[in-house]
């Protein structure tokens, strides 16, 4: 689409410009404790485990970041009450360290227990899912000027899991929207915008059809917006957002929305910049807990073959470092990663090259060391 087009009815949102640094960041509502050695968590990853562990040991050594890793498995077990839960060692360790990094988890279909991602969410009350999407220089997609963040309410909405068969052949699924959760996510979104020099927050909804539920969400967003007059607040229907997003993603900055719309939109935005292989994600919980993860699948077909692309997990780690206040290290790793992709000499297969995962990681580590 010709960028010279004047579209008089397009919203007058000021486009975020490239001076916005720290795209891959979160807002941490709690002050990090200032100890040099912060104990980290590396959740046990199925399948892609080998690659990721290798990558992290390499990069911890090269960056000399003051973090210590602890690995814990999160495969669901049945507790004494008969309910499924994550292993207590994992929970204890997480409560102590507060920060986690997680690789892909796959719940087998006939596992008998609920989704492990869902369990994690419930256990630590991970209410905000933050996914920054920015076009990566060197990784060409049809969209090269994306710079937005989707903030998704992660605990309720359509994913409450409450479904009933009313009579044979009629099913009802319940979508739950509460004042408390809506207020919490709206506050997080505005704090995020303020702390990361973002210009506007757009609430995405379908209140024309779901008047009470999305109406409540919208009202809470409006109320919270009153306290953040420095941030521009707009509301937009979900379908209009989708329509405009694929034509001109530069008009969006921070998007806040309930669970289902967030799921769809955050994946849509990930698709704009190149897919889940390069998209990081952070989950912010109550009580200072934050788990950062790559959201791609477990890729059983390439697991163990040193072919995986670690970019998503790497950028999630960058988000994590910023969350902890280790901005220097975060910047170094981020720059090294983007420089490597831009140079196009050492790239994994999905990015268009034919290097191995370890070669890609080594190249990034080399650049980090060169920067010191």
């Amino acid at each position: 689409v010709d960028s010279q087009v004047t579209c008089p009815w397009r919203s007058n949102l000021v486009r975020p410009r490239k001076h916005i640094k720290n795209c891959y960041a979160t807002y941490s509502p709690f002050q990090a404790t200032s100890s040099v050695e912060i104990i980290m968590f590396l959740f046990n990853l199925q399948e892609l485990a080998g690659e990721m562990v290798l990558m992290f040991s390499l990069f911890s050594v090269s960056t000399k970041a003051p973090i210590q890793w602890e690995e814990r498995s999160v495969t669901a077990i049945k507790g004494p009450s008969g309910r499924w839960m994550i292993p207590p060692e994992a929970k204890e360790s997480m409560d102590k360290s507060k920060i986690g990094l997680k690789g892909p988890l796959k719940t087998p279909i006939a596992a008998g227990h609920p989704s492990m991602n869902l369990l994690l969410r419930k256990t630590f009350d991970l209410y905000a899912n933050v996914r920054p999407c920015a076009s990566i220089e060197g990784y060409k997609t049809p969209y090269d000027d994306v710079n937005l963040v989707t903030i998704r309410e992660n605990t309720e909405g359509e994913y409450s899991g409450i479904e009933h068969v009313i009579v044979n052949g009629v099913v009802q699924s319940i979508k739950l929207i509460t004042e408390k959760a809506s207020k919490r996510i709206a506050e997080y979104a505005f704090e995020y915008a303020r702390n990361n020099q973002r210009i506007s927050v757009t609430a995405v909804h379908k209140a024309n059809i779901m008047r009470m539920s999305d109406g409540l969400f919208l009202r809470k967003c409006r109320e919270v917006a009153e306290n953040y007059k420095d941030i521009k607040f707009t509301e937009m229907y979900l379908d209009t957002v989708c329509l405009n997003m694929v034509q001109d993603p530069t008009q969006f900055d921070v998007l806040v929305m309930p669970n289902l719309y967030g799921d769809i939109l955050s994946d849509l935005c990930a698709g704009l910049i190149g897919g889940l292989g390069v998209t990081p994600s952070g989950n912010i919980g109550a009580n200072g807990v934050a788990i950062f993860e790559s959201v791609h699948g477990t890729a059983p077909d390439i697991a163990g073959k040193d072919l995986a692309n670690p970019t998503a997990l790497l950028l999630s780690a960058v988000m994590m470092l910023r969350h902890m206040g280790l901005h220097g290290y975060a910047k170094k790793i981020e720059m090294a990663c983007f420089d490597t992709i831009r140079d196009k000499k050492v790239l994994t297969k999905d990015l268009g090259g034919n290097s191995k995962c370890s070669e890609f990681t080594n190249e990034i580590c080399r650049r980090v060391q060169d920067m010191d």
Partner: protein
Amino acid sequence: RVLLSGGSGVPVLLGSPPAKRGGRHTVTLIPGDGIGPELLNHVRDLFSFSRVPVDFEVVHVNSALTSEDDINNAITAIRRNGVALKGNMETNHNMPPSYKSRNNLLRVTLDLYANVMHCRSLSGVRTRHRNVDIIIVRENTEGEYSSLEHESVSGVVECLKIITRDKSLRIADYAFQLARKKGRHSVTAVHKANIMKLGDGLFLQCCKEVASGYPDITFDSMIVDNTTMQLVSKPQQFDVMVMPNLYGNVVSNVCAGLVGGPGLVPGANYGKDYAVFETGTRNTGKSIAGKNIANPTAMLLASCMMLDHLGLHAYASMIRSAVLLTMNKTQLHTADIGGQCTTSEIIQSIRREIQSSSPHITGSIEC
């Protein structure tokens, strides 16, 4: 299979309504809000210029009123005529929940269960993706749009999403029949059954059941978030897509954006007995109303779909080719697709095309 048993069970897609008196059809016209009235005026003028044997019964619906009399009148008119062409009626979402969306009321009351949108890349419109050709079949009456909400405790709202076996079977059957009729090769069901196991699970199961009766058509399914991701990277992989209401809303808007925007794609709502045509993405276009810059393509193509539905294929082809020629060859574009023309200029060009392609139609260009 009940749907194929003939008589009143025949879906509208297979039959066509009989011609009305004197070979002229009467169609209900609902101007709606925003750009609806001006675009529908252009449609009416173009029809009278082209001597199309269609009379419009105009029914106004004032969406600002809380009373439902207007929309009920419109529904009665559509029941009488069988076919309608409408603009979008605005829903003020700050009104209390007792005020229901007029568009939704119309769809549900008339049981217009299938919303069909054909998104096709046009050669004259520059977009990031080429060769997109997707037919979207969206369930139009249930799902998340059931408008069943209640506040169980103060500050906690529940909204019900209803999925029924009958309606899922019906829409799946419609999608497969449409695919067969149009010579399409595959149908993709879009769902979120990994999370909504019972609801979307039922939908998916119904699609699979129907698919088994159409061995000539490939059936696969995809989760909605992956679908949107695939649509923005490789939309050429999709052929016909069938899905429940809300995902249909998302996917149809994404696809419309991919081919050039809301001004280009027409939409149709089919029921067993009635059919209502409108623009595909159902936008009111409030901010551009009255400025003579709206893109008339979507509404004109919707009116051509209506003519096809009435059996007036010659007129439909004539108008459609004139519209597409103006878009692709003459390259007269409104601002939404990167041009600088006004709506009137586009309409003039279309009239010229019709005049030159069908000289037996008398009517001066300036009328």
